[in-house]
């Protein structure tokens, strides 16, 4: 019997247990969808999940870096809006080449993250309050640039926005999805194989020990916020490809969706535990729920919020159980 609980603890405490649950949930939800709605059988429905959520996937990658070090960034949605607005304004009024605009807004995102990270680490400020200020600032700046919609009519943007890349027979994805998936792969590799990635895990696991080991904790922390700022800006570029406009109320509370996706995907809010492919599934699960509600037709959109909150709740409770099992596993050895 003792052996059995040992095995149970080992499975539950395993690094990929959370990922396993998310994957199972995704497959089950998709299977239920296929059984109930014929539309789910079309490959395009699956591709649409990716297309509609490309920006959210990138934002989730960014927030995962920050959550890993035990921080938080609630400025993401506003930075996305600011990026859309800045690119729209620059394209509409300066005639700058589109590529240069994209480069500029990406740099802007990095600088935004750098300032936030610097304030947090240098002055020991609370990440929540600093990024709250960041959120206010970016959202307000967006409105200062323009309070009305600015349409993007740049040929490069419009052609990228309408491009269809067929990956399945009868299923195509957009350029945004390619960018999102590339970001996901790069992010996973960076976390897994680079010194920076390992430092992030070490820092999130236990900051004091990381410091005692001589790891550059300050630099790593700031870098995590820079990565998040960059990802927000990149998500903004992808978002502007979908919306083809700048508007002060774009992507409101996207950061909360990103945090929810990340947590559903197995990220521990206390830091130190995350698996990027899991967070992709976290986003996809939210997408499936939305698709369900669209197909169902009679349910209103706000059911999505309630169901996502329930899922969030479920996964947080699972996390509590997982960390308890892991502690038991550690005490056995």
């Amino acid at each position, binding site marked *: 019997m003792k052996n059995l609980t040992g095995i149970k603890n080992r499975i539950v405490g395993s690094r990929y247990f959370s990922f396993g649950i998310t994957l199972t949930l995704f497959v089950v939800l998709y299977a239920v969808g296929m059984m109930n709605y014929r539309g789910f059988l079309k490959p395009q429905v699956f591709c649409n999940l990716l297309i509609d959520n490309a920006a959210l996937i990138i934002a989730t990658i960014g927030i995962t870096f920050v959550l890993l070090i035990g921080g*938080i960034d609630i400025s993401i949605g506003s930075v996305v809006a600011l990026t859309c607005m800045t690119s729209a304004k620059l394209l509409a009024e300066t005639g700058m080449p589109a590529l240069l605009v994209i480069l500029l807004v990406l740099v802007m995102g990095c600088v935004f993250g750098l300032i936030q990270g610097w*304030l947090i680490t*240098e*002055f*020991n*400020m*609370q990440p*929540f*309050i*600093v990024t*709250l*200020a*960041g*959120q*206010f*600032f970016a*959202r*307000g*700046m*967006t*409105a*200062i640039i323009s*309070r009305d919609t600015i349409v993007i009519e740049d040929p490069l943007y419009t052609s990228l926005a309408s491009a269809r890349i067929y990956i399945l027979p009868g299923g195509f994805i957009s350029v945004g999805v390619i960018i999102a998936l590339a970001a996901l792969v790069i992010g996973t590799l960076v976390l897994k194989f680079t010194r920076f990635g390992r430092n992030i895990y070490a820092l999130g696991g236990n900051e004091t020990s990381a410091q005692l080991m001589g790891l550059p904790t300050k630099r790593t922390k700031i870098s995590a916020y820079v990565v998040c700022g960059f990802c927000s800006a990149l998500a903004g570029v992808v978002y502007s490809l979908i919306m083809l406009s700048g508007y*002060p109320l774009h992507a409101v509370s996207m950061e*909360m969706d990103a*945090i*929810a996706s990340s*947590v559903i995907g197995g990220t521990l*809010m*206390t830091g130190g535990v995350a698996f990027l492919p899991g967070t992709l599934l976290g986003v996809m699960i939210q997408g499936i729920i939305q698709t369900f509600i669209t197909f169902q037709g009679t349910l*209103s959109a*706000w*059911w*999505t*919020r*309630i169901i*996502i*909150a*329930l899922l*969030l*709740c479920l996964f*947080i*409770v699972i996390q*509590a159980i997982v960390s308890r099992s892991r502690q038991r596993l550690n005490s056995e050895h």
Partner: protein
Amino acid sequence: MEKLKKITSNHLFLPLFALCLLLVFNAFATPGFFTIEFQNGQLFGRIIDILNRASILVILSMGMTFVIATGGIDISQGSVIAISGAVCCYLIGGNGDGTANMPLPVACLVAVLVCAVCGVWNGFLVSKLKIQPMVATLILMTAGRGIAMLITEGQNITVYYKPFTYIGGSLPGSPLPTTIYIAAIMVLFVVFIQKKTSVGLFVQAVGINSNAARRTGLKVSAIIFMVYVFSGVCAGIAGLMESSMIAAADPNNAGLNMEMDAILSVALGGTLLSGGKFYVGGSIIGAITIQTMTTTLYALGVSSEQLPVYKALVVILICLLQSEKFKNILEKRAVEKAVKQG
């Protein structure tokens, strides 16, 4: 010099200083800022207006102060405001002939009770399941507006029942808006609790070191639980006021981002966001200051969408002034200057 330092290091200095600065600025920039007129048995004027709007924030920030003092945070307050308004307006009903389906006190009481249940849920997650406060309240923040929608069946309910508007407006024959009275009663209640019981001390002990507090025999989880329930009740009362002001339930926009303003008020009042020592008086003045700033900026022609930029700068400034390291840098500068001068 010593005396000056003593004054500036007081926790009330920063919010009061900011408030005075704003008032002095307004005295010059906004003509008729301080005029209060007496019309039809009611007082009118910008100051009254500010106090009226600030009452909501004062109540919210008091709830938030206790939560933050335990080292937590409650980001679901805005959604709970929406729930409160939705419940109350649903119970009264949007009858066009101005009648109510349910007596007003009952509807208000039920709404506040529902919000207390929301607080119970948050408190349960944080104190029993030991989930981080930010994540735990994120759940209700996400679901709250959906729940409010569920109650109002996806519509904004407009209430034509006249007495409902008394909560956010003023009672017939009363010179001041009702909101100010409600806020004053809440303030007195909190002051009473703090002076006559040791609840404040307990909350502070939990915030400084919950482990130590537990070992000295405090029921830490019960205290944390109560703090979130109180925050829920505060949000509920604020929600009644908010929906009464527009005589409608607006699940999408009621109390949107209000929790952020409440957190800001608490921070401005000198309470550290990491918990521990807290200053209810500071939070109250902080709330009034924030509202004064908002009104001032509106008067200067800043639109509501652009307002956040200024708030952001204030947040960063407050946090910098609170940060130990920044203080050290400033002090070093001062010492160097003194040395140079001989």
